[in-house]
């Protein structure tokens, strides 16, 4: 537990010292989402209908951007060897990295998403569901993303490969997020979707650090 906090604090400190690097993901998030109205036209009837889905698709891509560096720095400078030799297990390391990633990317996306909802003219009934799906969905992205980040450590063209590996795995989250927002706009009860998203999060919490640890072990060899 002490090790976990120590690792999260270290990653957060590195993110703060990195300055604007941490903001890149959320800037991309807003910028990419703004492109769509230009592409499909600023029709006030279309934008609210597709807004929830677009915000989520762009959030997936924004989360991918920062995932590539999750373990890469520690891999390149040999820190990963020392982390492996330390009393902290690789599973704890994976969990700490995913939490730190979520705090530096998912939370920012969560804060920015209502702004995008405004730009897309989403009805006010969709705001809370959007934030709720973000709160339940983005930690899953970080946890599952950690597996991909560990698998592609040291690979050629790691970034593109990471997208190829992770986007299919992200589809279930996307389906239920978009479903929840659509449901909220249509005035349906979205508790089932939120329950399933919560279930995904719990499953990812239980399984993803374990798979990430297996992948990290391969990367250290």
């Amino acid at each position, binding site marked *: 537990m002490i090790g976990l906090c120590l690792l999260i604090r270290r990653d957060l400190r590195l993110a703060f010292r990195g300055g604007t690097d941490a903001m890149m993901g959320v800037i991309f998030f807003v910028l990419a989402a703004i492109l769509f109205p230009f592409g499909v036209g600023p029709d006030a009837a279309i934008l609210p209908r597709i807004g929830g889905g677009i915000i989520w698709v762009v959030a997936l891509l924004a989360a991918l951007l920062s995932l590539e560096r999750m373990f890469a720095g520690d891999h390149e400078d040999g820190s990963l060897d020392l982390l492996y030799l330390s009393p902290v297990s690789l599973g704890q390391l994976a969990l700490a990295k995913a939490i730190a990633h979520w705090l530096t990317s998912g939370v920012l996306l969560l804060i920015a998403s209502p702004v995008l909802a405004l730009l897309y003219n989403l009805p006010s009934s969709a705001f809370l569901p959007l934030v709720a799906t973000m709160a339940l969905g983005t930690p899953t992205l970080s946890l599952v993303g950690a*597996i991909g980040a560990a*698998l*592609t450590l*040291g*690979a*050629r*063209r*790691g970034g593109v*490969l990471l997208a*190829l*590996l992770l*986007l*299919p*795995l992200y*589809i*279930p989250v996307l*389906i*239920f997020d978009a*479903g929840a927002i*659509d*449901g909220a706009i249509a005035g349906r009860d979205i508790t089932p979707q939120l329950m*399933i998203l919560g279930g995904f999060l719990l499953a990812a919490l239980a*399984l993803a650090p374990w*798979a990430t640890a*297996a*992948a990290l072990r*391969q*990367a250290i*060899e």
Partner: protein
Amino acid sequence: MLHRFANPARFSRIAARVLPWSTALTGLLFVAGIYFALFASPADYQQGDTVRIMYVHVPSAWMAMGAYTFIAVMSATSLIWKHPLADIAARAAAPLGAGFTVIVLTTGSLWGKPTWGTWWVWDARLTSVLVLFFLYLGHIALTHAFDNPQRGAKAAAVLALVGFVNIPIIKFSVDWWNTLHQPASLTRLDRPAIDPAMLTPLLLMGLAFMAYFITMLLIRMRADLNAARARALQLSAAE
């Protein structure tokens, strides 16, 4: 070095003995299957001859799922028991599985146009097979993404197991998503009973596809082992 090739060497010997038989069996099954599929089975009373696409479409769908299951089992074998042949088997099976998946998608599309009036529907079956195709692509790409082939094999093994968890989720979730948005699409094999005259060619083609998979798997594994042995000889010659 010897202990590492002891097992694969035995595999190569067995494969060499099995291959002529499995190749002949594949050929026979295909001839029989195609004969029944094209000539000795009736046309559907609604779809006409279009229904014959089924004899390629359904067996390749079975094999697309079967090959992924095979890869997942081999990946577990590789990670848990560190069997040297498991990685090679998984690596050899992935492009075959991807090929079957392409056949399912294209034949399904060709079948869909005359019967449903569209090349593509975002329904549960189609979407989950499409995701399966991308899982295959990711597996193949990850296998070849590293300078150290063993690292690629192990990483791909972890991915195959993680992806295996994803398949039921996709199937289930898209079903659920589908009912929310649009009426369920037709699913061909859901009809109460299939005519025995159609079942014979379907099973024959299924067996033919499986025999083809086994034959190609053995050929690819043997080629992989031979290439590794050739590299080992080159490296030892350099020392």
